[in-house]
């Protein structure tokens, strides 16, 4: 009888999940998830989009305003249903970005001229600075094979691309959204091409500015625990 009771007891305990310890936890499961990204701006009512012009600094290697407008138009055409106007980017009044944001009469006139519902404009700055200096590195003697740490001079250049985007409603010239992005890279001067670096840095912004106007999603892998 006692034996039967002990067996019953054991069965009950096992059924109740005893003993339960974290050490018994199973392996986590892998799952693929889609991360939805709603457009940050309410784009209802906007169909015709005018991209540019942009305030910009002078660059000896290219017309950065023209290149930026070309990239923005291409990416918006490729990833959205908006009608991206193909007109040459209009000139902007010579004023600071903060003043431009408040220049509603200018944007209303611009919107009427191009029949644009929304104007994407702003400022682009592409700069390079000398980042040369001494760095420490391992040195192996060719004769003794001995490893030592030595300082040596490296000729490097830092490139920075900063983009301030402002989104202006055509009907009343009011700012509806603004955002800024910045990217910097430091490269050996001998191996860096300012033109190529510009396009590399600009490409890093694609997801950021598209996210303002276009719903997106991204696939990611995550782990789920079952206990």
């Amino acid at each position: 009888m006692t034996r039967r009771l002990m067996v019953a007891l054991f069965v009950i305990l096992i059924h109740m999940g005893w003993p339960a310890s974290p050490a018994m936890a199973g392996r986590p499961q892998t799952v693929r998830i889609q991360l939805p990204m709603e457009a940050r701006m309410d784009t209802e009512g906007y169909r015709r989009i005018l991209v540019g012009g942009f305030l910009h600094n002078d660059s000896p290697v290219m017309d950065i305003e023209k290149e930026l407008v070309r990239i923005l138009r291409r990416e918006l055409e490729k990833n959205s249903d908006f009608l991206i106007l193909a007109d040459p980017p209009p000139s902007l009044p010579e004023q600071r970005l903060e003043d431009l944001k408040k220049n509603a009469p200018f944007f209303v006139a611009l919107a009427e001229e191009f029949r644009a519902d929304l104007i994407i404009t702003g400022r682009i700055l592409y700069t390079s600075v000398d980042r040369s200096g001494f760095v420490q590195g391992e040195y192996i003697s060719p004769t003794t094979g001995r490893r030592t740490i030595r300082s040596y001079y490296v000729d490097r250049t830092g490139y920075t691309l900063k983009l301030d985007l402002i989104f202006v409603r055509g009907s009343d010239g009011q700012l509806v959204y603004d955002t800024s992005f910045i990217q910097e890279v430091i490269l050996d001067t001998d191996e860096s091409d300012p033109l190529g670096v510009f396009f590399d840095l600009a490409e890093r912004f694609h997801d950021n500015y598209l996210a303002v106007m276009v719903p997106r999603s991204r696939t990611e892998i995550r782990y789920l625990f079952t206990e």
Partner: protein
Amino acid sequence: MAKTLLRSGALTLLLAALVLGAAPARATSIKKEMAYAVDLGKKGLWHEAAHRFRLLLVRAPDHPRLWNDLAVAYEAVGRYDDAHQAYEKAVALMDSPPEEMLANQEAFEVFYRQWKGAEPLPATPATESESP
């Protein structure tokens, strides 16, 4: 007499098991429901999965793996601020979180910073000084 004693001892053991077994039983129940919620998530039913993870956390608020799973569910339904908090809670509840949990949080934080529009680099003075 000996038989009676043995029987009563065994009965006492059985009763003790029933009382002591309540907590493991709850753990088993949570484990089963957690596995069910995970299955829902794997089928793409993330809203329901998140709901079930939340209900489970009412019963087991200090369960780090549940917080991790809730964070993943929040990610999948686009509740990124909530996912950020849930991951922080999950990791804070463990002295040495499993690498999978840390990998989740790290990957999410990369995305979260981009989503929030945070910039990886500060504006350099050189950049600002050349503002037109």
